[in-house]
């Protein structure tokens, strides 16, 4: 073949298609997919069983409660799992947890890694920060894990992030990352941020962490039998809260709660605001840690049919850990002031930007995004000026929502334009994530915006009371 006589399209085809992945890489990834290293649970995997070990454990619990009673099931589940202080219940196989909390501290701000777990399917991390500016808090979403040494490291971005503002001013951030490939690799929490928009350079914090097997030391405790209260449900603003179990050890009271929300189009995650455990004697027990599991789904009522697709509710389990309750207390109550949900609605919104779009344009929409049981009116799309990460003024687009119910706050965490060159920015003036165009060229005509991730805050309070177990 004459090397100079290819047509342009042939040349482009040859150019782009000349790159091939390595056979070893292809085979290795293919094997992970086909055999066992993706979270697959056998031949008859249902979509409700995809949450690693959480699905089986919760389903065993739920199905078992109906058949043989709660206490027996709880004990059976605990035989398969152990309780990790500060994190909750984990399976004992191939689980690694933080050896000890690690803190990075400056005079006016600090960051503490309070817990981290690593299982065959995912990596979870809880970080508590104090004293960071409001601006710098926006960068919490950018925290990554650096895995490996400097020569051969790679970075993992979180797949889920929950940010919770605590009453004492600190912020708790919970992250779910993909699994870490090599267990013997060095793991460092890697975070870059700015205290203010005026700062030119990014600050960098690196916190090395050490993980150990869950079975080493006294980190994982066996729990005594649990107690399931009889009256155990409260409902408000479309969210039901159920006390599934209460377990008390020598120094800790663990309460397993389920948040039950109408089914979403896709998975959802929940985070709680401030929580208080009180008894009838007037004691309030400080919350030590909370643990979030990923979602599990159950059918309404007693109709447990794993093959049915008629799922109506999402049940999101949580483990709350408190100081040990007074054994003489007769009743206990839990109060939650707010719930934060991260939903993945994948709703599309069509916006016609017209032939000559410019900053200042407002395109009337009057569309409604349905987030489960909450209708969010989207009234307009506005072309605005935003500041890029290079501190450049560029055009971007924000969606304007209409009035929401008083108890609902919404923040659009991520949308995408299905348009390539746009990038996501958090803009302080709009208090919102904005899609901006670094090339400063606004697309024309109709664009399809996909609402990818929404942060919904629902105000309570929810209060649930139950009889304490008799000693």
């Amino acid at each position, binding site marked *: 073949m004459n090397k100079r006589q290819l047509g342009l399209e042939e040349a482009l085809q040859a150019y*782009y*298609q*000349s790159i091939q992945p390595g056979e070893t890489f292809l085979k290795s990834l293919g094997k992970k*997919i086909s055999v066992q290293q993706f979270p697959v649970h056998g031949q008859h995997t249902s979509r409700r069983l995809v949450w690693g070990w959480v699905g089986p454990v919760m389903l065993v619990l739920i199905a078992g409660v109906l058949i043989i009673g709660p206490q027996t099931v709880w004990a059976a589940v605990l035989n398969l799992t152990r309780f990790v202080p500060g994190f909750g219940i984990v399976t004992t196989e191939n689980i690694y947890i933080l050896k000890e909390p690690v803190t990075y501290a400056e005079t006016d701000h600090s960051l503490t890694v309070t817990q981290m777990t690593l299982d065959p399917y995912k990596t979870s991390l809880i970080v508590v920060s104090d004293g960071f500016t409001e601006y710098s808090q926006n960068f919490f979403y950018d925290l990554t894990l650096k895995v490996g040494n400097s020569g051969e490291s790679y*970075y993992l971005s979180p797949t889920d992030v929950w940010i919770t503002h605590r009453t004492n001013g600190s912020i708790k951030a919970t992250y779910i990352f993909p699994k870490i490939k090599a267990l013997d690799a060095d793991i460092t929490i890697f975070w*870059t941020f700015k205290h203010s928009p005026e700062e030119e350079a990014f600050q960098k914090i690196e916190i090395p962490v050490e993980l150990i097997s869950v079975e080493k030391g006294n980190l994982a405790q066996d729990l005594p039998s649990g107690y399931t209260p009889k009256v155990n449900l409260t409902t408000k603003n479309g969210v039901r809260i159920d006390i599934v179990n209460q377990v008390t050890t020598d120094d800790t009271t663990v309460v397993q709660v389920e948040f039950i929300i109408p089914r979403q189009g896709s*998975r959802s995650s929940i985070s709680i605001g401030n929580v208080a455990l009180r008894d009838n004697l007037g004691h309030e027990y400080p919350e030590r840690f909370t643990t979030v599991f990923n979602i599990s789904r159950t059918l309404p009522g007693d109709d447990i049919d794993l093959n049915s697709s008629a799922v109506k509710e999402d049940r999101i389990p949580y483990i709350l850990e408190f100081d040990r309750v007074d054994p003489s207390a007769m009743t206990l109550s839990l109060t939650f002031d707010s719930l934060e949900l991260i939903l993945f609605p994948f709703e599309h919104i069509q916006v016609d930007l017209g032939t000559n779009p410019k900053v200042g344009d407002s395109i009337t929409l009057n569309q409604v995004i349905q987030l489960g049981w909450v209708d969010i009116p989207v009234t307009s799309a506005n072309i605005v000026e935003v500041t890029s*990460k290079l501190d450049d003024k560029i055009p971007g687009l924000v969606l304007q929502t209409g009035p929401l119910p008083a108890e609902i706050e919404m923040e659009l965490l991520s949308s995408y334009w299905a348009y390539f060159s746009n990038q996501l920015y958090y803009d302080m003036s709009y208090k919102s994530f904005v899609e901006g165009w670094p090339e400063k060229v606004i697309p024309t005509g109709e664009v399809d915006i996909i609402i990818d991730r929404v942060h919904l805050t629902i105000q309570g309070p929810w209060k649930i009371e139950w009889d304490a177990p008799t000693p």
Partner: protein
Amino acid sequence: MDIEALLTNRMASEITDDELASLDRQPEGFSQLYERYAVRIFRYLSSRLSDRTEAEDLTAQVFLDAYQRLAEYKPRNQFASWLFTIASRRAADYYRRTRQNEKFDEDVNFTNYSDPLSKVMTSETIDELSDMIQKQSLDEREMLRLRFAAELSFAEIGRVTGRTPAAVKMALRRCLNRMKLSWEEKNE
């Protein structure tokens, strides 16, 4: 339904992506989808990133994402668009994470690791082609990648990029016409 049932009286290649996706994470079904798309996803990511190892990592992450989000996929004969949208998001996340601006990041010059290419083009021609691609806008480069590396149709590119198929076709045509002038000039 399992893959054996789908294969009754049919070749594996006759099973649609949507049918495989509807198997809902059964390993055999997802493996088939992987086999269909792994190379194209890798090529697309490699052409967008400057690091082959990163492209491999992101390829794995794209399939993990797809696997975890399979329940969200609505079967409308759009699996390729859906998968490449995930890949596009992953690549964008990569730039956000590493705080690089894609604008300043050169597309990969494949000559660094491509032997097959040298069999059909001289190194000088490859460099010229690479230069021409770099001169296109970000959006046009993305369309070139989706067309020639990912081998998507105009309709599929439209779904990934939020344009109508006609708009994609027109934009690509304009870009290729412009490149063609330069290409023919250099090849005269």
